[in-house]
């Protein structure tokens, strides 16, 4: 079985976000970029399934500008076998990403697609579900546990009130939540080895997909700042303030 893992290049989660002064977006020039943390979890899970003998090959896909090759190399260094880079300079939306991935699924016939539940830049939380729709595959979103049992996969999902378990016919799409695993760091020898692993370069046109955005970003602003309040000396002062000043207890 093949596992397809889409990976996204985003601003590193530990970098402070700066909104551009012309309100056109968020500053990405000269900012440290990394693999989206939920995508790292997806790569890790695919590798664990391969290590457990449940999968033979892991294909990492990234869609975006030339630098996305680095993100694919990171996945290869972790343990993915080969990469597909779909090169585009367009600000590509989840629906278009899902369409390209659905074409890749037609060509590669993966038994599972494991993706992050959301990217920490757009916070859309859409691509996995959209890919499932376009391929008519079942979906196990927000996964905290994955168990493959012949032609079905059991997915434990993080839902608002606790956990839910579903059984999906394979092929299926799974999106990862935080507790699924802790991603490994790539070792230096593996980083060196990854340089020799193949990356296919494609374009959206190769898949016949029009990636023109449908959603136009009119402006991006900073959220209103919250002012720091006062320091209290002890619990009795705190309780007094909450009762009489804030009126919340």
């Amino acid at each position: 079985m093949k596992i397809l893992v889409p990976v996204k290049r985003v601003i590193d989660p530990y970098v402070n976000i700066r909104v551009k002064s012309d309100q056109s977006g968020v500053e990405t020039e000269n900012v440290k970029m990394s693999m989206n943390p939920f995508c790292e979890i997806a790569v890790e899970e695919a590798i664990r399934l391969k290590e457990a003998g449940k999968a033979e090959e892991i294909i990492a896909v990234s869609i975006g500008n030339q630098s996305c090759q680095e993100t694919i190399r990171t996945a290869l260094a972790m343990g993915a076998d080969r990469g597909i880079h779909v090169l585009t300079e367009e600000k590509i939306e989840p629906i278009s990403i899902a369409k390209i991935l659905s074409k890749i699924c037609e060509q590669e016939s993966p038994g599972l697609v494991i993706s992050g539940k959301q990217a920490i830049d757009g916070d859309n939380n859409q691509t996995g579900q959209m890919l499932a729709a376009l391929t008519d595959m079942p979906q196990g979103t927000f996964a905290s546990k994955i168990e493959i049992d012949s032609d079905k996969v059991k997915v434990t999902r993080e839902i608002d009130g606790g956990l839910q378990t579903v059984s999906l016919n394979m092929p299926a799409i799974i999106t990862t939540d935080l507790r699924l695993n802790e991603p490994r760091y790539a070792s230096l020898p593996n980083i060196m080895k990854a340089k020799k692993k193949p990356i296919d370069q494609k374009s959206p046109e190769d898949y016949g997909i029009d990636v023109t955005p449908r959603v136009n970003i009119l402006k991006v602003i900073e959220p209103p700042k919250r002012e720091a309040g006062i320091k209290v000396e002890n619990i009795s002062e705190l309780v007094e303030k909450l009762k009489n000043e804030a009126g919340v207890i």
Partner: protein
Amino acid sequence: MTTLFFIEHANGQLSDQSLKAITATSQIDGDVHGLIVGSNIDSAVAEASKIEGLTKLIHVDDDNFNNIMAENLTQLILNISEDYEYFLAAATTTGKNVMPRLAAKLDVSQISEIIAIEGPDTFIRTIYAGNAIATVQTSDPKKVLTVRPTAFKAAAIGSSECEISKIDAENMPSISEFIGEELTKSDRPELTSAKTIISGGRGMQNGENFELLDKVAEKLGAAVGASRAAVDAGFVPNDYQVGQTGKVVAPELYIAVGISGAIQHLAGMKDSKVIVAINKDEEAPIFDVADYGLVADLFQVLPELEQAL
């Protein structure tokens, strides 16, 4: 133009999240139809039919929907999608699971977790974990939106019922199966609907120490939450998590205990009306957003707080 809003319910009660999110539909012109699904849910149907602003309630009485599977619910909405221009649901784990699948079937982009409606095709939403606020305009003919409940006030339940229409669940795809659910049992309010929340971070040191928070929560009728650091450290389950990757909350009072205030946590709670921070590190960034800060050892002051309430 007509709007379809998916209404969630559990144990005979309408979801507070849905009641908040449905308020967003009041800013869209035209009729609003509610969709409610499940068998033996008469009390929820009766209550839903009285939600102010609803002109019609569509009820699907079918065992397929005793538990919501995205594959089935998407097909159900698709069956009636021709009649609608807008499709909305609360940005709950159910809404987030189902609506993008629907959007792709309709070949449109989804606008996720809107916090305001600016015009018929223009919406406001947060990006980068709330570190930026984007105004976006869609050119898609049909609009699929999820709504962040904390951004809206709950719709009122009126006294008169709207028209109720029953439809059948046709062409259900049998590609997935519900196995079971393990819901966290608690006598206290849910995080997302609680008026008061007390959350613990890595400073709590272990899961047992969350009992100190439980005791205060008991006195305040509060929900107990946690930072991602506390969840990652295994102190508490993930459904406690407040933050960018967990739940976004906006209670009247939020008490952060032993939480340093990482960006990702602030993203989930900084819209709270009053924020209290208790931390022994006076440099902790949580104090930058707190209305009342107390620099102290939490193990000493939590029992004091419990006593003082």
